[in-house]
């Protein structure tokens, strides 16, 4: 297949899948366009929802009605009441409080994974894009990591290094890195031959300034978009791992762990899984809507296509 066809296919597929590959350097986006895309009703709703969830996470101790890990054997598996707004789980723990505190864990995992993958991906992608000698080495390693199903890689890493918040974030981050590296590398390769980069080289700009001032800024817009998708995907992976019982230690009230504990009593009390599930789905949905809108706003050429 010709290079062109391949590149256009992957640009199309990746952009719609999870990644946004913009080979062209991003240009200044008219503010009007940005405001129109981000001002659409669904996007505003997503932003509002995200703000609410972020506030819930920040003010969890004020909003909660008790202690998320306090066990009360006399109040097991109760239905919703004025004392327990969403009922209690099999240990008599208050579901509402657990879900409120769970938002902290889920957002922390999402934030940790997206920031780490963006930073590491930016570093490796820039090196691969600029230093041709290291390019094929880095990209072959990335191909290898990419071929391993993300959740399996994450589960294996957590099992081997012991479950904790840190290991789970690291384990979820590693499978996300190759896509970021590919994205950054394609942007760097794209701007390498731009006249302004050649001019900067001709003027004798030192390498760090050349990379930081002239090349890396082009990656910011696509990285913001990619970061939001990693955020959403990391939250889903954490929940999936928690659900399988191979994620965060069970005493941490993450949404995945809450749902995992609800499995046994699901037929009796579906809410044990569904309440946390609704929170998770709404958060991920808002982030995805926001990510799509950001992509459209930051890359007008793509938004016409999608």
């Amino acid at each position, binding site marked *: *297949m*010709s290079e062109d*066809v391949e590149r256009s*296919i*992957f640009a*199309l*597929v990746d952009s*719609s*899948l999870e990644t946004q590959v913009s080979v062209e350097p991003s240009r200044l986006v008219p503010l009007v366009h940005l405001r129109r895309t981000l001002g659409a009703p669904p996007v505003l709703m997503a932003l509002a929802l995200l703000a609410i969830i972020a506030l819930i996470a920040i003010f969890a101790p004020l909003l909660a009605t008790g202690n998320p890990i306090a066990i009360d054997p006399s109040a097991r598996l109760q239905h919703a009441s004025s004392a327990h707004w969403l009922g209690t789980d099999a240990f008599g723990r208050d579901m509402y409080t657990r879900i409120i505190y769970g938002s902290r864990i889920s957002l922390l995992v999402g934030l940790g994974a997206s920031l780490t993958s963006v930073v590491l991906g930016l570093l490796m992608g820039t090196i691969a894009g600029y230093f041709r000698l290291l390019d094929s080495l880095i990209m*072959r*390693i990335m*191909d*290898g*990591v990419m*071929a*391993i*199903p*993300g*959740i*399996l*890689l994450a*589960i*294996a*890493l957590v*099992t*081997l*290094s*012991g479950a904790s918040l840190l290991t789970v974030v690291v384990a979820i981050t590693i499978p996300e890195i190759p896509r970021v590296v590919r994205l950054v590398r394609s942007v760097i390769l794209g701007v390498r031959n731009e006249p302004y980069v050649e001019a900067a080289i001709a003027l004798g700009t030192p390498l760090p300034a050349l990379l930081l001032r002239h090349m890396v800024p082009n990656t910011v817009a696509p990285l913001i978009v990619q970061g939001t998708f990693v955020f*959403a995907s990391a939250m*889903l992976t954490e*929940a*999936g791992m928690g*659900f*399988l*019982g*191979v994620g965060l230690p069970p005493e941490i009230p993450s949404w995945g762990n809450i*749902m995992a504990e609800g499995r046994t009593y*699901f*037929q009796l009390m*579906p809410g044990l*899984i*569904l309440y946390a*599930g*609704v929170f*998770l*789905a709404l958060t*991920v*949905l808002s982030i*995805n*809507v926001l990510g*799509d809108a950001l992509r459209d706003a930051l890359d007008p050429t793509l938004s016409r*296509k*999608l």
Partner: protein
Amino acid sequence: MWTYIARRLAATVPVMGMVALVVFAILHLTPGDPAAIIAGDSATVAQLDQIRIHMGLDKPMYVQFFLWLVQLLHGDLGVSLISGVSVSGMIAGRVGPTLALSTTIIVFSVIVAVPLGVLAAWRQGTLVDRSVTAFSVLGFSVPVFVNGYLLILLFSVVLGWLPVQGYKPLSAGFWPFLQRLILPTLALSTAYIALIARITRTSVLEVMNEDYIRTARAKGLNECSVLIHHALRNASVPIITIIGLGIAQLISGVVVTESVFNLPGLGRLVVEAVLARDYPVIQGLILLFSFAYILINLLVDVLYTLVDPRIRY
């Protein structure tokens, strides 16, 4: 064509080697002594040393990697630490439900998603289009286990139409077999339908303004024929790509889905192996899934030539 396939097949060798290296590195470089994990908490130092020598852990790392690679090339994935059965034997015993579930998901998703995407592109901007687009964002966001339990709640607990969980092989009859695959298929398909419908819509939209579509309409072809033979045919390359990539992502979804619906497939085997810390099984399964991913990607590339004669190698 054949030389292309041979060349591509040869190109997968370094990637597979890299996967093997990454898997090896994960198991040997992460903190935690494999011998200590295998021996358990009560093992003495002498026992640990014995296990290390037995497993070859006392040899230098590159020797270990080489020996393991040679073993792999002989098709030997090792032996389970728990059951003592060969890993390839365990995989063979559990592959049925996974293959069945993957097949029904792919077939069902493609049958539903491609017409949906074409419909949305054809009626761009209408309510139909916006519903499909909204669904494609929603489908990505609802975790498969939430989906799965909602379906169990509705169809099994409330309506009582379908069994809650479990699996029957095809040899037990077609209906009992299919009956237990319906809910898992629906649960996991949502994400793939969302993905495939979205790409189908985008790629059909891309070609709808082409001259040959106008020509096809001008010569009096009916819309159906225009859409299927002219629009969809030309839009098929990205659609096939996404179906191929979807199969790769399917593996992660299958692991979770099998747990929700208690299907005794490879996904359950992964979780069982992880909970039991059965190293060789974890290792073997990761390798198997990764190699499957690489081969599926290769297959997709070869398929391009069949659907789009413009692509020549």
